[in-house]
């Protein structure tokens, strides 16, 4: 029965049974259960990632529903990660979903991430992103970074010393408060994060390492920029 669940993806020439087993054994930490987290978590759960740790300290608000498609109106005022875990388990009952109801800070991030194989940034602020980036460097695991604003988004995979880390390329981004977002931008970029996660976990394709994708949905323009390490980076420079 479970082979049938994954039969369409197993038809992809590079997506072997071994890839599927890699996904089943993997633990992925999804930082943020908002717009990006919704589509990322849906596709990773549907694809058969064995354990998803989804982390957010917020409750669902009506203004979230234009983009946070994990939820429904009846979830309003509920902790997002609890509703998210139920929804993901109803999509794929064979996987483990661990809700982590915590704010990500320097003090909490290592416990939040736990023994994950990969961190996926679905956050809405750079302060928490820097915490996750540092945790990924400490733990020696890849960190998929993304952000969205309006009709636009950006995406890259960090895995120093092979690639730069977040602090190499964005050393000091101030937080900017509430960001406007068109729902489909969260869907597009969150789906790309899930795609990069599957590629990294399965060792297939050409992940977006050392390259930053910037996508503008309003004019349908995509730029891919080569990005380099900063040898003096305070986070990864010693690697």
């Amino acid at each position, binding site marked *: 029965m479970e082979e049938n669940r994954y039969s369409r993806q197993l038809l992809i020439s590079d997506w072997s049974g071994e890839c599927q087993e890699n996904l089943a054994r993997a633990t992925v930490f999804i930082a943020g259960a908002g*717009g990006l987290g919704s589509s990322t978590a849906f596709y990773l759960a549907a694809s058969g990632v064995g354990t998803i740790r989804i982390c957010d300290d917020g409750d669902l608000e009506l203004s979230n529903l234009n983009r946070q498609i994990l939820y429904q109106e009846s979830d309003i005022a509920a902790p997002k990660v609890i509703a998210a875990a139920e929804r993901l388990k109803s999509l794929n009952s064979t996987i483990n979903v661990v809700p982590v109801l915590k704010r990500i800070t320097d003090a909490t991030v290592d416990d939040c991430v736990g023994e994950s194989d990969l961190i996926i940034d679905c956050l*809405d*602020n750079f302060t928490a992103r820097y915490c996750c980036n540092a945790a990924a460097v400490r733990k020696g695991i890849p960190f998929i970074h993304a952000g969205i*604003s309006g009709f636009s988004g950006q995406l890259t995979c960090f895995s120093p010393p092979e690639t730069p880390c977040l602090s190499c*390329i964005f050393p*000091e981004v101030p937080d900017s408060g509430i960001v406007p977002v068109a729902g489909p931008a969260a869907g597009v970029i969150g789906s790309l994060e899930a795609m990069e996660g599957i590629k990294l976990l399965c060792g297939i394709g050409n992940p977006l390492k050392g390259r930053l994708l910037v996508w503008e949905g309003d*004019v349908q323009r995509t730029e891919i920029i080569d990005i380099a390490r900063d040898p003096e980076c305070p986070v990864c420079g010693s690697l």
Partner: protein
Amino acid sequence: MENNYRVISVQIKYLVNLADKAGRLSETAGFPSGSTLESVQKYLQQMYDIKLPDPGIMTVLNGRGWNQHPEKMNTPLADGDTILLFPPIAGG
């Protein structure tokens, strides 16, 4: 008398909110030979009131951040260079 004055053509791409600020997606701008990134800095401020460096604006010359070129804002420009300007995108 021989005229050694040459113009270097540089493509500048404005992404996301920088396109709104410049009123265009991209342009090809001409600079005198010997110009550096600092010449672009002055041009952007004069034309569009875009001030660099700014932690809210990524400035990328030929695929590398301006601060990752050893000579930083003194990096010489060459004909055919491409400069991208875009903001770090924060929402999620």
